[in-house]
């Protein structure tokens, strides 16, 4: 386990608390409003973190991520509309509980469960850090290539409804990633004589376009948001001791399920929450109460969704493989600050890994306090008109894209990505695979060619090295996973997981 004393500096830093607080505030906004996802918030915020230190950037981004996942449960409870896909399972018991006049208790359990789930997942992240850092010494180009292939194989998991469309978007993302000077030979590819393209396509404006601008246009095309009933009461947020006691085992089980699902790339928090809820029902003494306002169902759904954060950070940080679109954006932010997530990060910057753990803990603590004391504010956020938020997101997205390099080309990149992203989404093409491929493409290609150069063209290098073989086998299993999971996990009562952006 890494040196736990490294947890202290961020915990004792007022600056860190301030940046986390800013991130949590933004996350509450993006998470509470149905349609405004955590990924969208991360994409819009990332360009602005360019001007601060990496630790401070992570404080804001992680604060946003943590609070957005938690806040997604608020409209799920009050409006029966999940704020983020991660809170789909919360609608099944949270909303019925609110309809029984116990909205306050549902909101309170959502906040407590979120903190509990995240806390357990951070313990797992800390425990996993040492063995993963040990792997770093054994990584060469062949292993990095295999890890990138493993990451790319998760495209099937983030493809939503159509694997074929997801694959198409993944290939387009990989093609975008080869634009610019070839990293090995320096040969310009697909630059069409444009000097601005020599460095490749700017990742941040593409991300802002796909998750900011395209999301706004998609929401404009979607149905109007349900309005909050003025009579909704949010008092009485804490359960009685008799109510709380049986919830502990469900909270632990939900958290473990969320962590396990979070560690697996491409199985997002929505899957974690749904499986946690389902498992809780199987082990419950009152399974008939599930779906009708069960407290056990509420706690399982919230712990399952939030515990996935720590779980997904394990793969995102340790392997550089984003577990979902939000993870991809986080990796993009780290790369923007010159930090390459992957095995070497655990070896070279153990302080950063521990700092990230501390920051997520701080974010979850602020979120807990906010969730218990700020229920009225949370319900008021639901009354903000969409149009004002859409306008703000559009202006901030374009301003942020420009501000990064003060380049008009980046503004055009964001606008183009936004318009194309919207048109593709309208026809069911998911954006997650494109972003995953854009991040992992350069890593895959450069390490493929380096490995072949070192082995003098012998392709068996990828299967004769154990770690490389392991990740290639994992990639194959991930590609085949949907064939098995459709048979094993298709429960008649459970809605399908969305595979949508968090």
């Amino acid at each position, binding site marked *: 386990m890494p040196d736990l004393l490294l947890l202290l500096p961020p915990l004792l830093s007022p600056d860190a608390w301030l940046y986390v607080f800013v991130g949590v505030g933004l996350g509450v906004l993006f998470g509470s409003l149905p349609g405004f996802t955590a990924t969208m918030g991360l994409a819009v915020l990332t360009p602005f973190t360019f001007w601060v230190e990496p630790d401070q950037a992570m404080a804001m981004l992680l604060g946003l991520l943590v609070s957005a996942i938690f806040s997604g449960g608020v409209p799920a409870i009050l409006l029966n509309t999940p704020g983020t896909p991660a809170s789909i399972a919360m609608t099944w018991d949270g909303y019925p509980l609110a309809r029984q006049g116990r909205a306050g208790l549902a909101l309170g359990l959502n906040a407590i469960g979120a903190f509990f789930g995240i806390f357990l997942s951070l313990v797992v992240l800390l425990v996993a850090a040492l063995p993963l850092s040990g792997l770093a010494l054994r990584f060469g180009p062949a292993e990095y290539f295999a890890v990138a292939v493993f990451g790319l194989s998760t495209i099937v998991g983030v493809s939503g409804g159509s694997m*074929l469309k997801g694959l*198409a978007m993944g290939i387009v993302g990989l093609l975008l990633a*080869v634009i610019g000077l070839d990293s090995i030979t320096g040969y310009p590819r697909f630059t069409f004589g444009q000097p601005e393209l020599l460095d490749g396509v700017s990742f941040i404006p593409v991300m802002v376009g796909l998750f900011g601008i395209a999301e706004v246009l998609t929401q*404009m095309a*979607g149905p109007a948001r349900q309005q909050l009933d003025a009579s909704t009461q949010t008092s009485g947020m804490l359960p009685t001791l008799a109510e709380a006691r049986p919830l502990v085992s469900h909270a632990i089980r939900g958290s473990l399920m969320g962590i396990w699902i979070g560690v697996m790339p491409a199985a997002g928090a929505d899957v974690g929450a749904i499986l946690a809820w389902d498992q809780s029902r199987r082990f419950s003494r009152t399974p008939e109460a599930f779906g009708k306002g069960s407290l056990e169902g509420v706690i399982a759904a919230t712990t399952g969704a939030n515990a996935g954060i720590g779980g997904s950070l394990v793969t995102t940080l340790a392997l550089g493989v984003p577990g979902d679109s939000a993870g991809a954006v986080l990796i993009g932010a780290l790369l923007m600050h010159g930090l390459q997530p992957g095995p070497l990060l655990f070896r070279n910057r153990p302080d950063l890994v521990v700092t990230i753990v501390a920051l997520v803990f701080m974010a979850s603590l602020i979120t807990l306090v906010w969730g218990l004391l700020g229920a009225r504010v949370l319900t008021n956020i639901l009354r903000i008109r969409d149009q004002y938020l859409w*306008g703000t997101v*559009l*202006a901030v997205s374009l301003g942020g894209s420009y501000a990064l390099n003060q380049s008009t080309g980046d503004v055009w990149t964001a606008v183009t990505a936004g318009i194309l992203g919207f048109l593709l989404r309208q026809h*069911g093409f998911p954006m997650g695979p494109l972003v995953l491929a854009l991040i992992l493409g350069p890593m895959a290609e450069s390490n493929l060619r380096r490995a072949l150069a070192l082995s003098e063209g012998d392709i068996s290098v990828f299967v004769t090295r154990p770690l490389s073989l392991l990740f290639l086998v994992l990639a194959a299993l991930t590609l085949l996973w949907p064939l098995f999971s459709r048979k094993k996990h298709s429960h008649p009562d459970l809605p399908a997981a969305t595979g949508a952006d968090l």
Partner: protein
Amino acid sequence: MRGPRAAAIVLLVLAASVLLATIGYPPGNNGVPGPALVPRVLGLALVLVGCLLVRTPGQGAVPRVRHHLAIPATILLLLLYALLWRVVPFGVLTGVILLTFLRLTGVRWTGATIAAVLMAAALQTLFERGLGVRF
């Protein structure tokens, strides 16, 4: 022709362009692939996926959507915003674009004007004073 089929044809055209563009790329040596290998493999993969997508059944007409007139207008506004980015001062441009957008999406004149002015001023302050960005 709608949905996947139209998109599939666009993807096939893209794949063909990629394959054609890599014709002049230098070859690899000593067993190490050159810069053309990966784009060519991706181009071929895109051909395969595109062909499979062509075979998938097309969707019917896209259902009438909310703000169906405001969406194309917003896309035009975004293009105009990018086009005039360095021509018109940022604060003024943002204010006008936001006002137009809010009106297009049904916000009343008073609310739209106040919101546009406040947001434009806030963004101008954030970018120029806070982050030192020069427009």
